[in-house]
């Protein structure tokens, strides 16, 4: 490749070769000397307390080394839940007391010479419980409900005008209930932890979306100086939110390794992943839309209920997004949390937008039918360039929603749609076409980075950001390569290690914006030094040139036709390398944001929070085919058009959006964790029964990039898109199924038994 790697090129991933040869070391792949193996024993009841733990049989297993229970290992210190200023994914501390808060709570950690022995011993632990009847879910006896606005300092229910009166007076209205199920991330990589101690210092190898959070959280739990804890997570086998905050297993494994004086490695089982980590909570929604006969939205009200654990007020409160989506005349919203005997939920890919936009975009489709209007036109009539709240009419920095709709509709062939339900058919297959809006807040976090350049034209970029499959190594490398005038293969990128300067959490789709802001700043400092040396020297081709005329390209310093090699500038400076450490704090965050980042605290700016609204948009169209005799549902094609500012790498961006749309199809048709109502236990806690799409479930998924320039959001003008693709897809599929069958399923997932009335 002759030209320098410009951001915006579809370059292959920097880590591609490692990933196709088995060379990428995920945390459980890292070799440690003489490891002992750990296995977990987890609770068989959802509520109550441990009366007795009988360990004799487990202790008799040959090779057994240690068993940690609340009776001998209750020294881990509590830290705050992540939304209360800590790093914990849950306030529940499994080995602190005999209390059982939820099904599958950790009751013991077994350590043995081999994985086989640890497994056997874990199964031989016998626990007697004093059981109490548990509360399973929303609407179950014993559930308690709180308004989020009453329990959260941050959340205010958005609203303006008199939505009740406007709804009552509206000539066309929809009043409907929607619900979404429990879902588990199920990244292909299991939840693993390996801990090693030496000289009182701890190293943790664990897949993490936030290594600085883990480092600081574990240090606090173990009463250590954070400087003595290092977390390494260079490759992550999928995360989707499940590896964002600190779960209880990490400190337990660290404690086991300390007691034993030997590295301890835990690879938890797939079923344990359902209860020792987090999940997307089930939600219920009541949505009311009122419109005039031309489709103008007069009223929008939305009350939602979200499930959480007993001690934590985890919530996603997606009304902050839906309330700015269209040009409503009046808005009333209220979000509630419902406490039950469950593990604490957590972020899962587009946490607020997936359930809340499903409800809104389904209601919009219902309204379009009530108006006998094309659903695309209904969105056009209600498109807005600002917050519809007249008391706070903040503009969007950019909003290309209708351009997305128009391009996706054209590619899909939407104009050939016959609007009436059940009016399109191919033999025994009922055909339905549906669409929905996709959106995701554009966020940015503080980040620090170190970039160095040597005279031989090699750059090294160091930042504790995270490669969860998004292409972080590649786009971060591209940003540096472009700025330093190098080819991408001359940039070495190091991520996922707290020995590096702190990067942002891999959450809220902020990594590209946040990390590249810091990288560009560091590269610009390097450029400045090189340019001053070349121009300020009294020799060489660039002597005396204005600095503004200089650039870096092809490993040289150039000014128009003349250039000098990098080596010359280094020689003038008398230096063998330039290394720049920089900190980047985005506009809108407090001055202590960087210090908080070092302490493992998350701060995000942008989205719906600031003086302007910052969002990426998309439009998704799907074809659903429902078999008229069996109710079998297929989605043979989907088209999504997305506007997300500057696209750093169309190849990795395409994979993210395509994967996201398949996630959305999955949310509509496949995924749900089933909960036994009596025992409050997960039933289908394995990959055979928890349905996700397999290759044969997916056919054509087309991604269109809609060009968009937004110079206000961040230095490179990028909008995160890792969580954009799976928003609205569930509604688009549900809308298509309605169009095919005339049956409106308002409870996801849509499985064939729900379509039986239509066949």
């Amino acid at each position: 490749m002759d030209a320098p790697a410009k951001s915006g090129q579809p370059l292959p991933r920097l880590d591609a070769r490692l990933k196709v040869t088995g060379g990428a070391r995920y945390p459980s792949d890292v070799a440690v000397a003489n490891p002992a193996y750990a296995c977990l024993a987890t609770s068989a009841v959802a509520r109550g307390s441990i009366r007795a733990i009988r360990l004799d049989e487990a202790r008799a297993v040959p090779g057994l080394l240690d068993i940690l229970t609340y009776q001998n290992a209750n020294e881990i210190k509590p830290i705050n839940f992540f939304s209360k200023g800590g790093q914990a994914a849950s306030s529940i501390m499994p080995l602190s007391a005999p209390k059982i808060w939820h099904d599958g709570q950790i009751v013991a950690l077994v350590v043995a010479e081999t994985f086989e022995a640890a497994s056997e011993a874990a199964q031989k632990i016998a626990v007697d419980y004093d059981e109490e009847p548990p509360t399973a879910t929303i609407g179950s006896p014993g559930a308690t409900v709180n308004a989020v606005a009453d329990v959260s300092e941050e959340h205010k229910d958005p609203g303006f005008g008199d939505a009740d009166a406007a709804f009552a007076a509206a000539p066309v209205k929809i009043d409907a209930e929607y619900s979404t199920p429990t879902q588990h991330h199920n990244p292909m990589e299991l939840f693993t932890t390996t801990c090693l101690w030496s000289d009182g210092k701890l190293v943790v190898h664990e897949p993490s979306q936030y290594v600085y959070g883990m480092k600081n959280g574990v240090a606090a739990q173990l009463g250590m100086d954070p400087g003595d804890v290092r977390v390494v997570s260079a490759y992550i086998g999928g995360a989707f939110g499940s590896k964002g905050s600190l779960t209880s297993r990490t400190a337990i494994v660290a404690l086991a390794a300390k007691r034993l004086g030997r590295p301890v490695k835990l690879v938890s089982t797939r079923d344990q992943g359902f209860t020792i980590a987090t999940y997307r909570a089930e939600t219920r929604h009541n949505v009311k839309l009122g419109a005039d006969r031309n489709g103008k939205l007069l009223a929008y009200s939305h009350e939602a209920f979200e499930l959480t654990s007993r001690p934590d007020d985890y919530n996603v409160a997606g009304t902050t997004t839906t309330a700015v989506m269209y040009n409503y005349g009046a808005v009333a919203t209220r979000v509630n949390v419902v406490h039950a005997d469950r593990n604490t939920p957590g972020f899962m890919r587009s946490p607020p937008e997936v359930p809340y936009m499903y409800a809104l975009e389904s209601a919009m489709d219902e309204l379009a039918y009530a108006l006998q209007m094309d659903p695309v036109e209904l969105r056009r009539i209600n498109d807005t360039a600002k917050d519809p709240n007249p008391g706070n009419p903040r503009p969007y920095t950019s909003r290309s929603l209708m351009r997305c709709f128009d391009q996706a509709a054209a590619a899909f062939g939407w104009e050939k749609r016959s609007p009436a339900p059940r009016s399109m058919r191919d033999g025994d297959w009922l055909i339905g076409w549906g669409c929905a809006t996709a959106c995701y807040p554009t966020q940015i976090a503080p980040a620090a980075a170190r970039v160095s350049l040597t005279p031989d034209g090699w750059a090294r970029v160091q930042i504790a950001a995270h490669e969860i499959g998004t292409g972080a190594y590649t786009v971060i490398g591209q940003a540096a390569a472009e700025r330093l005038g190098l080819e991408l293969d001359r940039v070495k990128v190091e991520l996922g290690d707290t020995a590096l300067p702190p990067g942002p959490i891999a959450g809220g789709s902020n990594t590209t914006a946040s990390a590249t802001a810091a990288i560009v700043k560091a590269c610009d400092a390097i450029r400045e030094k090189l340019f001053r040396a070349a121009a300020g020297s009294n020799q060489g081709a660039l002597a005396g040139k204005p600095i503004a005329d200089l650039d870096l390209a092809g490993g040289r310093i150039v000014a128009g036709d003349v250039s000098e090699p990098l080596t010359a500038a280094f020689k003038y400076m008398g230096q063998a390398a330039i290394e720049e450490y920089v900190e980047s704090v985005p506009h809108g965050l407090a001055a202590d944001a960087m210090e908080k980042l070092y302490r493992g605290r998350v701060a995000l700016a942008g989205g719906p929070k600031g003086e302007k609204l910052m969002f990426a948009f998309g439009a998704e169209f799907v074809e659903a085919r429902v078999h008229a005799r069996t109710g079998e549902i297929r989605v043979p094609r989907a088209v999504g058009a997305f506007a997300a500012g500057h696209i750093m790498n169309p190849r990795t961006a395409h994979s993210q959006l395509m994967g996201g749309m398949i996630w959305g199809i999955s949310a509509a048709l496949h995924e749900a964790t089933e909960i036994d109502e009596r025992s409050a236990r997960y039933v289908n806690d394995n990959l055979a029964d928890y349905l996700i799409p397999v290759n044969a479930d997916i056919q054509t998924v087309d991604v269109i990039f809609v060009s968009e320039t937004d110079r206000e959001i961040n230095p490179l003008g990028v909008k995160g898109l890792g969580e954009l693709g799976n928003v609205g897809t569930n509604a688009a599929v549900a809308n298509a199924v309605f169009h095919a069958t005339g049956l409106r399923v308002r409870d996801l997932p849509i499985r064939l038994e729900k379509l039986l009335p239509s066949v």
Partner: protein
Amino acid sequence: MSSAALSVAKEAAAETTPPSSAAERGGAPLANVSLEINGRTYPLALDPRTTLLDALREHVGLTGTKKGCDHGQCGACTVLVDGRRVLSCLTLALMADGESVTTIEGLAGPDGALHPMQQAFIDKDAFQCGYCTPGQIMSAVACVEEGHANTDAEIREYMSGNLCRCAAYPNIVAAINQAKHELKRA
């Protein structure tokens, strides 16, 4: 699983060899097994319950093969045993005694030249996190070898034992379509 494989496993399990370090430390009685992996022979003394997957990862140090479920439900652990694709988490190491195992580490040439399937996965961006990828690639190589890559629909069907939570499925199909032509020519 063939009955021959079962009987091999039983015989191998019977030949336990007590004097080994883990046994001295109080571990389970060990069994000797000789695995031929990527053309190299590895004599191992293993707990007879050790799966081929754990033997590869924890005893041989070949961590390219991944554990995604340990229950035969995800395909992340797919390797080739005598050219057939096999779920290494459902295969006891003893059952592979004397058979030839190929893992993702053994696919590239000795000079580092990538197998056409590996190159196709790069060219088509057929992965994101990469965790399912070793299993996908081993399965894809076998899928072509079996003659099950004639149409997109056939590829999808015969690759449906390998889950990809990042959902790179359309790109995986494209990669197999690219590689199958090169493999036919070879």
